[in-house]
C-alpha cells in the first residue's frame, strides 16, 4: 500500500493525493449520473461513501475530507431534493446531515486506521532497526567469540606443550638410568628423581643428609670427606660407593657432583648424577681373576710341556732353537742353555746316516714354509740311537710371515721294529696269497666269494674264463649269467641260504662264454668272525651237466620202465578188467533184447522199455569208464602232477581190483581219513603204486589158509602235513634179511617174479618228493608198506 510517510512528504505527493481525491469525486459523480441517465438506476449513496473510503484509503485524511466535501455536495445535488441542484430542502436536512456525519465518520475511521497502521509501521520499522542492530551486534559478538576461542586454543596448546615439555623433562629425569639428586647449598639432599626412588625404594622424605641414606656404611667416610672438601672449594667431584637397592642388595655406583652457581657466582645447589657401575666392577674383578687363572694356566702349561713324554722344542724364524722342554733335555742329555740360542749343531743329535737326509728336509721345509715330517734316529744321552718321528710346524703372523717353528719328536723305535716285522710277514703273506691264487685258479671248479648281500666280490680264473665276464661285470650283473628259467628260483634259494646262515647248495644252469648253458651245482659256506657273525660267503660250483644228462636219461628210462611195468601189471589183471567190461556189456545186450521183446507185445508197456533203455545208457557209460581208466594206465606220458584226492584213487583201485580180491578170497578193508589235504601227484602213477602194493599183498596172502585173508588200506595225514597211505596184509610177512632188499631192483620172493615192481614204485614216489618204506608189524603177522606224498606245491627248478 503506498503509504506516505507521516512527515516530510514531498510536495508532488501531496498534489497527487489531492488530485486523486478530486478525480475520485468527479468519477463517482459521473458514474452516478451515467447510471441514472442510461440505465435508470437511482444514484446510490454507497457509491459516494465508497469514493470517500477509497480516497481515505489511498490518499489519506486530507484528501478524504476534500472528497467528503465534494461528496456531500454530490449527495446534495444528486440525491437530495431537489435533485440536480445544490438547493437543500428542509426535510432533507437530516439525510444530509446523516450523510455528512457518516462520511466524516468514515474519514475519521480511516484516519484512525491509518494512524494505527502508521504507528504499527513505525513500530515495525523500529523493530527492524533493532533487529538490524542486534544482528550487527550478534555478528560482532560472533567474531569476538571466534577470536577468543582461537586465543583460548592457542593458550591451551601452549599450555599443553608446556605440560608436555615439563612431562618429558620429568620423564627424562625419571627415565635416564641415572640417579639424579639435587643438594642444597649445604649439601643436604632435597630432590631425588624417580630412578633413585625406585632403586632405593625410599621416598623423598628419607633423603635428608648429605650422603644418601642408602650408601654402604664402609663407603660413607670417604664421601663425607670429599663433601667437606667440595663445600669449601665448590669444585665438582666424583665418588664411587655401594648403594643399597630396594631388595637389600648393594651395587657399585659412581657419582659425579657439580655445583650450580647463581649470577653472583655463589653455589646455590649441587646436582648429582649417580650411575650403576656394578657390572664394570664385576668385570674388573672378573678380569683380575682371569688374569690370575691365566697365570695359573700358564704355569700348568709349562709343567705339561715339561712332563709329556714327547720332545718339544721351538725355533725362531731363522731356525735357531729357542726352547726345549724337559723331556728333550732329559733324553739328549743337553741342557736348555746349551741347546738354545746359537747352541750345538743339530747334527750332534742325529744318527750320522740320517743327518744329511734330515738337514735336506729341514732346509726344504724352511724354504717352502711347510711342515716338516721325518723319521730320524736321535741320540740318547747314553749314546744309543732310537727312531723318532720329528714334526716341525710353522706359525705365521697376520701378514703370513713365519714367526716361529714348533717341533715335536715322538719315540717310534718300537713301532719301527714292529713295522719291519710286519713288512716281513706281509711279504710272506703275499707269497702265500700268490700260491693260494694259483691253486684257486688251477682247480677244476668255479670258486667264488660273496658279501652278505649276495654279490660276488671274487671269482677265480676258471669262473671268469667260463662265464667270460670280468669281476666288475660279475659284481653287478651276476644273476644274468644264469638261465632265465632258473634265475628266479636260484635267487630265492640263495637268499634263503644266506638268511639261514647254514651251508647250503642249489643247482642251476650257468651261461658259458659262448652262450651255451650248462648245469652247475653251487655249494656255499659262511665265514664267521670271532663273534660268530657271518662276514663272507665262500662257494664252489661244479659242472654237473653230464650228471644231469645222465639223470635225465635215467629218468626217461624209469618212466619207460614204469610204463612197461604198468602194462605188465595190466596184463596180470586183464582178466579182471575183461570181466569188469563184460558185465555192463552183457547187461546192455540183455536189456536191448528185453526192449525188443517188450515192443513185440500187443500193447507194449513203454515204461518198461524206457527203464531198460536207461540202464543201457548207464551200463554203456560204465563200460566206457573202465576202458578209459585202462587206457590211462596204458599211456606213457611223463609225470603230470595235479592236486589229487588220495581217497578217491584208493577207491578206484579197490573197485578195479574187487573181482581179483574176491577171486582170491581176500577181504579188503579201507580206513580212509576224512578231509585229507590234496596231494600233488600224478593220478596214473599213484594208481600204479597202490595197485602194485595191493597185488603184492594179495600175493602174500595166497598161501594163507588158516586165518582170514585180510588186506587193509589206510590213508592218513602225518605231522608234516603229508598224505600217508599204508597197505597192510596179514600174509606171510617179510623176513628180517629180506627187509632191506625188498626195494632193490630185480629182487623178488615170488617165483617167476621180475622184482621190479617195488623199485619202480619207490622211484615213482620219490619222484613225487615222497617216501616209500616198509614197516614192522608188531600187531599180527604180515607186512605193511607205506608211502607219503607231499601236499604243498614246492618250487622245484
Amino acid at each position, binding site marked *: 500500500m503506498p503509504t506516505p510517510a507521516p512527515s516530510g512528504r514531498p510536495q508532488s505527493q501531496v498534489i497527487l493525493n489531492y488530485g486523486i481525491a478530486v478525480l475520485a469525486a468527479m468519477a463517482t459523480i459521473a458514474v452516478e449520473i451515467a447510471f441514472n441517465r442510461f440505465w435508470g438506476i437511482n444514484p446510490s449513496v454507497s457509491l459516494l461513501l465508497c469514493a470517500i473510503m477509497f480516497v481515505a484509503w489511498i490518499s489519506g485524511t486530507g484528501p478524504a475530507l476534500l472528497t467528503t466535501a465534494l461528496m456531500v455536495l454530490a449527495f446534495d445535488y444528486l440525491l437530495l431534493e431537489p435533485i440536480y441542484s445544490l438547493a437543500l430542502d428542509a426535510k432533507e436536512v437530516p439525510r444530509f446531515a446523516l450523510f455528512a456525519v457518516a462520511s466524516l465518520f468514515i474519514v475519521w475511521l480511516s484516519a484512525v486506521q491509518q494512524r494505527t497502521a502508521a504507528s504499527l509501521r513505525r513500530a515495525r520499522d523500529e523493530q527492524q532497526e533493532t533487529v538490524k542492530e542486534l544482528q550487527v551486534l550478534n555478528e560482532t559478538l560472533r567474531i569476538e567469540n571466534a577470536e577468543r576461542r582461537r586465543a583460548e586454543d592457542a593458550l591451551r596448546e601452549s599450555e599443553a606443550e608446556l605440560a608436555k615439555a615439563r612431562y618429558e623433562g620429568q620423564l627424562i629425569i625419571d627415565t635416564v638410568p641415572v640417579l639424579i639428586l639435587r643438594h642444597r647449598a649445604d649439601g643436604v639432599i632435597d630432590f631425588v628423581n624417580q630412578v633413585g626412588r625406585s632403586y632405593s625404594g625410599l621416598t623423598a622424605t628419607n633423603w635428608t643428609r648429605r650422603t644418601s641414606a642408602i650408601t654402604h656404611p664402609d663407603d660413607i667416610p670417604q664421601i663425607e670427606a670429599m663433601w667437606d672438601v667440595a663445600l669449601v672449594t665448590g669444585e665438582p667431584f666424583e665418588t664411587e660407593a655401594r648403594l643399597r637397592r630396594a631388595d637389600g642388595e648393594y651395587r657399585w655406583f659412581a657419582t659425579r657432583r657439580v655445583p650450580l652457581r647463581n649470577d653472583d657466582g655463589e653455589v646455590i645447589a649441587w646436582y648429582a648424577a649417580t650411575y650403576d657401575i656394578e657390572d664394570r666392577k664385576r668385570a674388573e674383578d672378573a678380569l683380575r681373576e682371569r688374569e690370575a687363572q691365566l697365570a695359573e694356566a700358564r704355569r700348568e702349561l709349562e709343567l705339561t710341556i715339561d712332563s709329556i713324554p714327547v720332545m718339544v722344542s721351538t725355533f725362531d724364524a731363522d731356525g735357531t732353537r729357542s726352547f726345549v722342554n724337559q723331556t728333550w733335555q732329559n733324553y739328549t742329555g743337553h741342557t736348555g742353555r746349551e741347546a738354545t740360542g746359537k747352541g750345538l749343531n743339530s747334527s750332534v743329535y742325529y744318527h750320522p746316516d740320517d743327518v744329511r737326509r734330515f738337514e735336506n728336509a729341514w732346509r726344504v721345509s724352511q724354504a717352502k714354509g711347510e711342515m716338516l715330517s721325518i723319521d730320524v734316529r736321535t741320540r740318547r744321552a747314553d749314546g744309543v740311537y732310537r727312531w723318532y718321528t720329528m714334526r716341525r710346524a710353522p706359525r705365521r703372523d697376520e701378514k703370513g710371515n713365519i714367526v716361529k717353528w714348533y717341533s715335536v719328536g715322538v719315540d717310534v723305535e718300537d713301532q719301527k721294529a714292529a713295522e719291519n716285522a710286519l713288512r716281513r710277514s706281509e711279504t710272506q703273506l703275499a707269497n702265500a696269497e700268490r700260491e693260494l691264487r694259483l691253486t684257486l685258479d688251477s682247480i677244476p671248479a668255479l670258486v667264488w666269494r660273496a658279501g652278505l648281500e649276495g654279490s660276488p666280490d671274487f671269482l677265480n680264473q676258471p669262473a671268469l674264463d667260463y662265464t667270460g665276464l670280468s669281476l666288475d661285470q660279475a659284481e653287478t650283473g651276476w644273476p644274468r649269467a644264469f638261465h632265465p628259467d632258473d634265475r628266479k628260483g636260484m635267487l630265492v634259494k640263495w637268499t634263503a641260504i644266506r638268511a639261514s646262515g647254514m651251508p647250503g647248495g642249489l643247482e642251476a644252469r650257468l651261461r658259458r662264454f659262448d652262450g651255451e648253458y650248462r648245469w652247475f651245482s653251487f655249494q656255499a659256506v659262511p665265514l664267521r668272525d670271532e663273534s660268530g657273525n657271518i662276514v663272507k660267503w665262500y662257494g664252489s660250483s661244479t659242472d654237473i651237466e653230464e650228471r644231469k644228462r645222465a639223470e635225465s636219461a635215467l629218468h626217461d628210462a624209469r618212466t619207460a620202465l614204469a610204463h612197461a611195468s604198468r602194462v605188465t601189471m595190466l596184463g596180470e589183471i586183464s*582178466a579182471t578188467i*575183461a*570181466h569188469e567190461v*563184460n*558185465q*555192463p*556189456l*552183457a*547187461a*546192455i*545186450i*540183455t*536189456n536191448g*533184447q*528185453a*526192449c*525188443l*521183446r*517188450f515192443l*513185440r*507185445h500187443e500193447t507194449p508197456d513203454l515204461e*518198461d522199455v524206457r*527203464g*531198460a533203455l536207461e*540202464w543201457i545208457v*548207464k*551200463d554203456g557209460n*560204465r563200460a566206457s569208464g573202465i576202458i578209459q581208466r585202462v587206457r590211462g594206465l596204458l599211456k606213457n606220458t611223463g609225470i603230470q602232477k595235479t592236486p589229487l584226492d588220495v581217497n578217491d584213487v584208493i577207491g578206484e583201485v579197490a573197485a578195479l581190483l574187487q*573181482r581179483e580180491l*574176491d*577171486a582170491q578170497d581176500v577181504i579188503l578193508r579201507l580206513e580212509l581219513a576224512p578231509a585229507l589235504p590234496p596231494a600233488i601227484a600224478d593220478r596214473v602213477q599213484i594208481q600204479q603204486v597202490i595197485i602194485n602194493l595191493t597185488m603184492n599183498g594179495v600175493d602174500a596172502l595166497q598161501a594163507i589158509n588158516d586165518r582170514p585173508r585180510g588186506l587193509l588200506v589206510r590213508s592218513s595225514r602225518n605231522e608234516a602235513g603229508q598224505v600217508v597211505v599204508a597197505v597192510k596184509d596179514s600174509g606171510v610177512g617179510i623176513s628180517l634179511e629180506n627187509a632191506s632188499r625188498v626195494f632193490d631192483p630185480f629182487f623178488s620172493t615170488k617165483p617167476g617174479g621180475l622184482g621190479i615192481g617195488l623199485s619202480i614204485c619207490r622211484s615213482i614216489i620219490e619222484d613225487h618228493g615222497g617216501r616209500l618204506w616198509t614197516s614192522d608189524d608188531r600187531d599180527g603177522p604180515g607186512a605193511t608198506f607205506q608211502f607219503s606224498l607231499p601236499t604243498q606245491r614246492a618250487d622245484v627248478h
Partner: protein
Amino acid sequence: MVAMEGKSEHIVLVVDDDESVRVALTNLFRSINLKVEVFNSAAELLQSKLPDFASCLVLDIRLPGVSGLEFQDTLAKAGIRIPIVFMTGHGDIPMSVKAMKAGAVDFLPKPFRDQDMLDAVTRALDQDRRRRDGDKAASQLRHLFETLTRREREVMSLVTSGLMNKQIAHELQVSEITVKIHRGHLMRKMEARSLADLVRMAELLRIRRQD
C-alpha cells in the same frame, strides 16, 4: 518165441552181485511175462523162503564169498533141487564142465544171446515143473501104498518082479487064490489099471525086487 502159458505158476530167481545184470535179466524175463525175483548174494537167497512152485535159479558162478559150484553143492546137500542156470563173465571152461556134471541146466558165458538164456530158463522151469509133478505123483503113490496091508505089499513087490502067482504063493507060503485076492485088492487100491501100471508104480516106489 517161448510163450509161457499161465496155467501154472513159475518164477525165476536171479542171483548176481552186479545190479546192471540183475536189472537186465529182470527186464528180459518180464518181456516174456516170466516172474522174477532178484538176490544180491547166495546168502540172501538162502535166507529167503524158496517158492514151492516151479522155479529155477540163474546164478553167476563167481559170487563174492562163495563159488557157484560150492553153492550148487550146498543146495544139493540141503535137498534143494531147484534147477540152476549158470552164467559167467570169466570164461571158466573147466568150471563149466564141473557145473554141468553136477547137474546144472546150462552154463552161459556173458554176454549171452537172449534166446539162449530164455531157452535155458524155460528148460529149467519145465524140468522143475516135471520134477514137482513127478514128486507129487510119487507122493500120491506112496500114500496109496500106505493103505496096502503087509501081505499086499509083499505080493506087489513080487508081482512086479515078474513072478507068476504060483511062484508068489510058494514064496509067501499061501494059496494061489490068496495071492490072486491080494493082487486084486492091491490093484484096486493102487488104482493101477494094468500090470504094466503096477510095475511102473513099483518102480517109482522102488519096491520092485530086482533079480
